[in-house]
């Protein structure tokens, strides 16, 4: 089975656990292509994957509107947070997220952006749009790499960055970064699995895709997602959400 999945799922460590468990239960082999949401959806349009697990609702809905998706189901979620260097040079702790971004821009502290149209990148840009930043000043660094490596860039360059909670806690042991702002209301980071429409994407293996989605939503799959990271980080990295409506998430 060919899975298109975003870097946050891999860099948090969840992907390996999910794939191992699914392979053991189903006897199928999984080949995962790991890229940002935009790239994963373009793989899906071309029939290079059978099913996707992604986290950027606007691009997903466009994908569904264009008729490429068959079924889109909510799998799990966490939220986006602002992390930064331990000294908090721009003094943004305790602010709202928009105020924090404004203070970063005013102080000229380094800010790391993925710059790759991933779910994280789209979320970050939507906050900058609210601040009104339209130029690309020198302190705005586009890393051009996945979530895990971008956190390394932020850590090494003492920069601020928007990250999903899962990848941050999954990697925080080796990073010189701390949680700076936990936005309220939460900036949801919601993962959907999408199976592909057989007429639009005939190359996709629908049976394999359905069995993977059924696994993700099964009590076993949801339990693995909810328990992942609890032992090592003391807090779950992802919250299972099978059967919930997107609008009802806390």
């Amino acid at each position, binding site marked *: 089975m060919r899975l298109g999945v975003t870097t946050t799922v891999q860099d948090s460590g969840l992907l390996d656990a999910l794939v191992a468990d699914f392979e053991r239960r189903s006897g199928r082999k999984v080949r995962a292509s790991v890229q*940002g949401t935009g*790239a994963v959806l373009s793989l899906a349009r071309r029939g290079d994957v059978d099913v996707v697990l992604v986290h950027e609702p606007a691009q997903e809905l466009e994908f569904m509107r264009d008729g490429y998706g068959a079924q889109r189901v909510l799998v799990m979620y966490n939220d986006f947070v602002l992390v930064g260097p331990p000294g908090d040079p721009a003094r943004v702790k305790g602010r709202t997220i928009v105020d924090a971004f404004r203070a970063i821009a005013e102080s000229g502290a380094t800010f790391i952006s993925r710059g*790759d149209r991933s779910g994280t990148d789209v979320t970050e840009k939507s906050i900058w749009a609210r601040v009104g930043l339209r130029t690309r000043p020198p302190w705005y660094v586009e*890393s*051009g*790499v996945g979530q895990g490596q971008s956190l390394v*860039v932020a850590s090494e360059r003492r920069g601020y960055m928007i990250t999903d909670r899962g990848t941050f806690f999954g990697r925080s042991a080796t990073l010189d970064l701390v949680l700076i702002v936990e936005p309220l209301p939460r900036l949801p980071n919601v993962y959907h699995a999408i199976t592909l429409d057989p007429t639009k994407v005939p190359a996709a293996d629908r049976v394999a895709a359905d069995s993977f989605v059924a696994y993700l939503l099964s009590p076993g799959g949801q339990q693995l997602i909810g328990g992942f990271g609890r032992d090592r980080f003391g807090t779950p990295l992802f919250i299972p959400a099978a059967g919930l409506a997107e609008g009802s998430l806390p």
Partner: protein
Amino acid sequence: MELIFEGLREAVARILTLDRDLLEAASASLVTSGSATSLSVVTGVPLGAALGLGRFRGRGLLLALANTGMGLPPVAVGLFVAVFIWRSGPAGQLEWFCTRQAIITAQYLLAAPTIVGLTAVAVQSIDPMMRLQLTALGATRLQSIALLMRESRLLILTAVMAGFGAVISEIGASLMVGCNIKGDTRILTTAIALETSKGEFGAAFALAFVLLGIIFALNALTTWAQQRARPQ
């Protein structure tokens, strides 16, 4: 097929309009690989000549090391350079991670052994009779070396081009130590990988054509120099 034609059309447009991102990546590639190759020439050509012509202890070992170095896996070099220059590493004070200096360091380690090894071969390939004649004619040691280098300059040029060609096409080490920072460490190869993964095939094609163009131009220049020097 439509994807390919669409991509090619956009690529040509980007090249003709001198797209800013394209120029930035091309210049970053030329600066980093050019610097790494220059450093390799300054240090590697004398060392290679010494290894090829000299007779001293440890020469065999050094030659074997240079020859091994010609096949260094870029990702291994990237890993070693990265752990050295991370802030937690021994050279962390430099704060070189995600900088052009980091890319130049990694590319230097990749290019230098090639230039040392091939220079040694080049100076050794000169007819041993010529070396004897030079001594017989009373040339000083330095004069002999200068003349032998002059005689083997085309082979040394080939060695330099081989080194440059290897590092400008390299991605593994450069991405690991330089990251892929827009307008700074985003070189042609890392930009191609990023644009492809974003699904921006036009931009990726344009970058690839520029990379191929640079490599072709350099090889054409080398070939021209070689042919011009050939005795008629």
